[in-house]
C-alpha cells in the first residue's frame, strides 16, 4: 500500500493538513518544511534506484478507476524541479506566511504538481491537475478575488478542455493509461501509413490536439491564454509565487511533452512537417515565440516589480515552448534544460521580490531605490539571478539559452531564432530597470531602516543561487540526466562542457576567464578609482523636456516612449476581451432569469401547458 511514490505525492498534502489543523506558530512551519523536504529526499534517493531499473511503478484502484503512477527519467527531472524549487519556496514561505491557511493550499498545490509529474494515466493526471489548480487558486483568492477568479476560470476551462480531450480519447481508445494510449495511437499512425482506416479521424486529432493545447497552454501561460498569469503571480504570497511560476507553469510544459509522448507519432503522421519540425509542434513553437515577445514587451512596461517578473516569467516560458515545439531531440532537451534554469532563476527572483515586499512593504519602482546598501545578501542573490536570466555565462541561464538557440538555428528556423533573440534583448531592457531602480540610486527616506533578509528566506535563496551557479559552471551535470530521457547521447561533452557537434560551451573555461577578467577589472578599479560626487539634478530624458506629465525617471514611466510607440498594439487586449465576454454572459443570464422566473404563477402554469403541448404534438 505505502509506496515511495505515494509518499512523494501525498506527504506535502498531509503535512499541510496537519499544519493547518494544528495552527501553532513555529510548529506549523516546521511541519510544512518537513513536508517539502521528505519528497525531495525520496526523489534524490530515487535517482539511485533509477540507475538500476528504468522506472518505479505504483497503481491503486479507487472508485472503479485504476490509478497508475510511474517515475522515470523525464518525470524524475520535472519532479526534481518541483522538489528543489518547492522546497526553497516553502522555506521562503516560512518567513513570509502569516497564517496556516496558506500552508494548506501551498502544500496542496505541491502535491498536485508531484501527482501530475508522476501520473501514468490520464485520469490521475487530470485529478492532480485539478488539485494543483485548486490549491494555487486558493492562494490567490486570499489576496485578490478578481485575479483569482480569472485564474481559476481559465484554468478550469483548460482542465475541462483536457477532460473533454481525455473523453474523446477514451471513447476511441478505450483506455486511460499512457502506455496503452501511446501504443494504440502509434499503431493507428502505422495503419495510416499503410493506408488502411484509422481509428481516429483527422478531425478527431485536430480536436484532441486543440483541446490539449488549450489545457496546457493555460497553465504554461501561452499567448493568448496568458492573461491570468500577471495578476495571479503578483497577487499572492511572493514566496509562493516562486513555486507558482517556477514549478506550476512547468506542469503546462510537461503537458506539452505528454502531447508528444502520447500523440506525437499520430499527429506527425496526420499533419506532417514544416521543414524539420512537425507541423503541430510548429504551432506550439510559434505561439511560444509570440509569448516571448508579448511577455517581454509588457514586462518592460510595468511599474510594479511583481508584475514585471510575472510578465518576464511568461516570456521565459515562451522559450521553453519554442524548444518543445521545434521537436528535435536536441531542442526538446534544450527546452527541458531551460525549464530547469527558468525554475531556478525565476524562483530566485520571486524569493527576492518576496524579501523586498516583506521588508519594505512596497512593490512599485517609484517607492524604491538604494536597497543594495541595506540588503547586501539579497542584492548578492539578485546579482546571480539577473546574470542568469539575462543569459550571461557562466550561469545556468546562458547554458540553456545557448542550447536552445543553437537547436532552433540548427533546424533552420530563423523566425523563431529571431524571436528568441529579441526576447533576450528585451530581457536586458527590463532587467536594467530592476537593477537600477531598486538597488541603486537615491533611497527614499522611509526605507532607511530596512533590514536584510530573514534567515529561512536567505537559505532558500542560497540554495537556488548555488544551483544557478553550479549548473552553469558544470552544465554536464544536467546534460547527462537529459540524455537519459532519450537513452542516447544527444548532448555530448564532459561535465564541464556541452558539445552538440556544431558548437560547444565550456562552463568551467568561461568561468575561469570571467574570474580572471573580474580580478583584472578589480585591480584596475582599486588602483584607479576615485569617488566623485554627482549632483542629483543632473538628469536628462532622452532629449525631451521634463514636465510633470512627462517625467521619466528610471523609477517612473521609464519606458513611456516605448509604450507610446506600441500604443496601437497595446489596445488589443485579450484580457479585456475575456472580461467583456464574461460580462455579456452575466447580463444575458440576468435577463433570462428575470424573464423566466418572473414570479407570476400563471406564467408558470403556462410553462406546464406548453410542455404538455409539446408532449402532445411531439407524440412522445
Amino acid at each position, binding site marked *: 500500500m505505502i509506496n515511495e511514490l505515494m509518499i512523494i505525492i501525498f506527504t506535502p498534502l498531509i503535512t499541510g493538513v496537519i499544519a493547518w489543523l494544528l495552527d501553532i506558530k513555529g510548529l506549523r512551519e516546521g511541519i510544512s518544511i518537513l513536508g517539502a523536504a521528505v519528497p525531495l529526499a525520496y526523489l534524490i534517493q530515487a535517482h539511485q534506484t533509477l540507475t538500476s531499473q528504468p522506472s518505479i511503478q505504483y497503481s491503486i484502484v479507487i472508485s472503479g478507476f485504476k490509478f497508475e503512477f510511474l517515475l522515470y527519467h523525464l518525470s524524475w527531472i520535472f519532479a526534481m524541479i518541483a522538489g528543489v524549487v518547492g522546497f526553497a519556496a516553502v522555506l521562503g514561505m516560512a518567513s513570509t506566511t502569516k497564517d496556516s491557511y496558506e500552508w494548506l493550499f501551498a502544500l496542496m498545490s505541491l502535491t498536485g504538481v508531484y501527482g501530475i509529474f508522476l501520473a501514468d494515466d490520464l485520469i490521475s493526471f487530470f485529478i492532480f491537475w485539478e488539485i494543483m489548480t485548486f490549491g494555487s487558486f486558493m492562494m490567490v483568492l486570499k489576496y485578490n478575488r478578481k485575479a483569482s477568479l480569472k485564474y481559476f476560470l481559465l484554468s478550469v476551462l483548460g482542465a475541462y478542455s483536457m477532460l473533454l480531450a481525455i473523453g474523446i480519447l477514451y471513447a476511441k481508445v478505450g483506455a486511460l493509461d499512457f502506455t496503452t494510449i501511446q501504443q494504440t495511437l502509434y499503431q493507428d499512425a502505422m495503419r495510416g501509413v499503410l493506408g488502411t482506416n484509422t481509428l481516429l479521424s483527422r478531425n478527431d486529432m485536430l480536436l484532441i490536439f486543440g483541446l490539449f493545447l488549450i489545457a496546457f497552454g493555460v497553465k504554461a501561460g501561452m499567448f493568448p491564454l496568458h492573461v491570468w498569469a500577471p495578476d495571479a503571480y503578483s497577487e499572492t504570497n511572493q514566496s509562493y509565487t516562486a513555486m507558482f511560476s517556477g514549478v506550476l507553469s512547468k506542469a503546462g510544459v510537461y503537458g506539452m511533452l505528454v502531447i508528444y509522448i502520447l500523440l506525437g507519432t499520430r499527429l506527425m503522421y496526420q499533419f506532417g512537417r514544416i521543414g524539420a519540425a512537425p507541423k503541430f509542434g510548429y504551432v506550439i513553437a510559434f505561439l511560444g515565440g509570440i509569448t516571448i515577445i508579448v511577455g517581454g514587451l509588457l514586462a518592460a512596461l510595468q511599474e510594479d516589480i511583481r508584475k514585471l517578473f510575472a510578465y518576464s516569467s511568461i516570456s521565459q516560458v515562451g522559450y521553453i515552448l519554442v524548444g518543445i515545439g521545434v521537436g528535435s531531440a536536441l531542442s526538446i532537451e534544450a527546452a527541458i534544460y531551460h525549464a530547469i534554469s527558468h525554475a531556478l532563476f525565476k524562483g530566485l527572483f520571486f524569493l527576492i521580490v518576496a524579501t523586498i515586499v516583506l521588508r519594505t512593504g512596497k512593490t512599485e519602482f517609484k517607492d524604491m531605490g538604494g536597497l543594495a546598501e541595506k540588503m547586501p545578501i539579497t542584492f548578492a542573490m539578485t546579482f546571480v539571478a539577473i546574470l542568469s536570466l539575462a543569459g550571461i555565462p557562466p550561469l545556468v541561464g546562458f547554458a540553456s539559452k545557448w542550447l536552445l538557440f543553437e537547436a532552433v538555428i540548427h533546424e533552420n528556423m530563423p523566425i523563431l531564432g529571431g524571436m528568441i533573440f529579441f526576447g533576450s534583448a528585451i530581457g536586458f531592457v527590463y532587467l536594467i530597470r530592476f537593477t537600477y531602480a531598486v538597488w541603486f540610486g537615491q533611497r527614499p527616506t522611509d526605507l532607511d531602516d530596512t533590514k536584510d533578509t530573514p534567515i529561512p528566506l536567505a537559505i532558500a535563496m542560497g540554495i537556488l543561487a548555488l544551483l544557478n551557479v553550479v549548473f552553469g559552471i558544470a552544465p554536464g551535470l544536467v546534460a547527462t540526466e537529459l540524455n537519459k530521457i532519450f537513452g542516447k547521447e544527444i548532448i555530448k561533452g564532459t561535465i564541464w562542457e556541452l558539445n552538440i557537434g556544431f558548437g560547444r560551451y565550456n562552463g568551467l573555461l568561461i568561468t575561469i576567464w570571467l574570474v580572471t577578467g573580474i580580478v583584472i577589472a578589480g585591480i584596475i578599479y582599486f588602483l584607479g578609482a576615485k569617488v566623485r560626487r554627482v549632483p542629483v539634478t543632473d538628469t536628462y530624458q532622452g532629449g525631451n523636456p521634463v514636465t510633470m506629465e512627462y517625467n521619466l525617471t528610471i523609477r517612473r514611466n521609464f519606458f513611456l516612449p516605448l509604450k507610446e510607440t506600441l500604443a496601437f498594439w497595446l489596445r488589443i487586449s485579450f484580457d479585456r476581451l475575456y472580461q467583456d465576454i464574461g460580462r455579456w454572459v452575466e447580463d444575458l443570464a440576468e435577463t433570462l432569469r428575470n*424573464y423566466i422566473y*418572473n414570479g*407570476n404563477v400563471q*406564467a408558470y402554469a403556462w410553462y406546464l401547458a406548453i410542455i404538455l403541448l409539446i408532449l402532445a404534438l411531439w407524440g412522445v
Partner: protein
Amino acid sequence: MINCIQCIEYVMVLVMILAAIFAVEWKDLLAAVVGMAAVSLVASILFFFLQAPDVAMTEATIGAAMSAAVFIFAIKRTQRYETEEEEKLGWWIRW
C-alpha cells in the same frame, strides 16, 4: 340507438360542462363556488350511473359539500367579487 338512459347521460354531461364553464366565468366568486359544487353534484350523479355508489356518496359529501363549505369560508375571509380588471395588451411582454 338512443334510449332514454343515454338521453339523460348526455343531458347530465352537458349540464356538468355548462356548470363548469359558468363556475369559471362568473365574476361573483360565491356563484362560481356554487357552480363548482353543481359540477361535483352532477358528477356524483354520473358516478351513480357508472355503478359507483361509494364514490358518488363520497363525492357528494366531501367533494361537493365540504369543499364548497371550505370555499365559502375562504371567500368570506377574503373578497367576494373577482375585481381583477381585464389586462392590457402585451401580457407576454410584461412578464
